[in-house]
């Protein structure tokens, strides 16, 4: 699952809209998570200039908007938008599975002591559909 999430260049957004599907106000609560996004999206150089983009297992594109906050290391937050056809509702089941895959990708990238095995175990403990519970 982890391998099916890839970073891509900004897509053509004509006739598309951004649908907010997940938001994190404190991506640096564990600093290694912030470090991961900084490294993957070159945020120390790019800053707020442009979002990051991912392709998820469904083929859907997700936009990562990084959020800054005075007095805190950048980024302090991240918002994930599904890029969807402008007038079409999102498919919540697809989005949910894609988000789970993005979490896998993130945890695998952050690395030890975090692991996708523990993420899966947590998902099964709480009986998440995307975790195969």
């Amino acid at each position, binding site marked *: 699952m982890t391998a099916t999430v890839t970073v891509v260049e900004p897509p053509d957004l004509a006739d598309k809209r951004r649908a907010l599907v997940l938001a*994190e*106000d*404190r991506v640096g*609560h564990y600093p290694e998570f*912030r470090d991961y996004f900084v490294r993957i999206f070159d945020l120390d150089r790019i800053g707020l200039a442009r979002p990051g983009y991912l392709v998820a297992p469904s083929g859907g594109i997700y936009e990562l908007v990084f959020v800054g906050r005075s007095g805190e290391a950048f980024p302090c937050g991240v918002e994930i938008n599904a890029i969807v056809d402008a007038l079409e509702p999102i498919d919540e089941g697809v989005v949910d599975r894609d988000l789970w895959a993005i*979490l896998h990708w993130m945890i695998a990238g952050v690395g030890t*002591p975090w*692991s996708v095995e523990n993420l899966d175990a*947590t998902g099964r403990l*709480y009986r998440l559909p995307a975790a195969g519970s």
Partner: protein
Amino acid sequence: MAFVGAFDRSASPCGAFVVALRMSDLALSSVLPEHILRQWPYAPRFARVNGWRMHYVDEGAGDPIVLLHGNPTWGFLYRDVVPPLVAAGYRVIVPDMIGFGLSEKPTREHAHSLDGHSANLVALVRQLGLRRMTLVCHDWGGPTGLSCALAHPERMRALVIMSTWAWPMPPAEFHTRIFPWRTMHAPLVGPYLLGRHNALAGRGVYLSVVDRERFRQRAQAAYEAVLPDPATRLLTWTWPRWIPLDEKGRATARFEWLEQRLARCKLPTLIIWGREDEVFDASTFAQRFKRLLPHAEGPHLVTGRHFLQEDSGPEIAALILEFVGRTPRTGDQ
């Protein structure tokens, strides 16, 4: 949530106004299932505290006993405790922490802090003019309630402490583990697991009671129903991040203050703990409270995991009544 009915304004002894909004039965039943409403028949009241709209119930007359819940519950947790206390001649006040229950639920993470939640409680205590007060603290109702009590001992009669902590890191080995605790509230995982899927109010509480089938039938819907949307569940993953795991924790200074003040506290105190509590195990946590407060009674062990009120509400009420009845009526100043 719609409010229907008249405003009932009454001046509190300290001069501030407490606004009690009477929601229609229709409005309340749109939030809570019928079998939950039957167990929680109390008039909802609301007060403006520290800039937020707080829901609470206020039943009976006499010296006040304030029942404080934590994450991710609300006053309903005390449904089996309230009636015996009221019947015994106490005024029983059960606030819903801002962010939980029927209280306002801020949607910005930075709206929440340990000191802010303690100040919310201080505001309610002042508005209601509470004196000779017994505070019953559970989970995050511990750090917030004890902060309130130790900052205002002149209003206090007694303390009851259940399944909580009040000192710096780390609270338990459980809280240092990657699985499941730290993964559950990790960046983006918390908003997904606890936000989109409401994992703590549903499955999480279920896993932390002894009689799970009884809980599923009688109570689980009460905790899930008041957190209907991901944005309303923010505090369920925000509170875990306030538990200090190292000296850089945001609340470390407040927990150091709490520990120091508790060590000097002479308030009559009762410690009650769940025998099966695996999150805040009695042998570690209840005993540490006992060392901080050597004069405290207990720990009395009752059937219960972390949410011990679900399994032993009437027994907890009996312990509180027997204890408070023997304490001097202090806290008039």
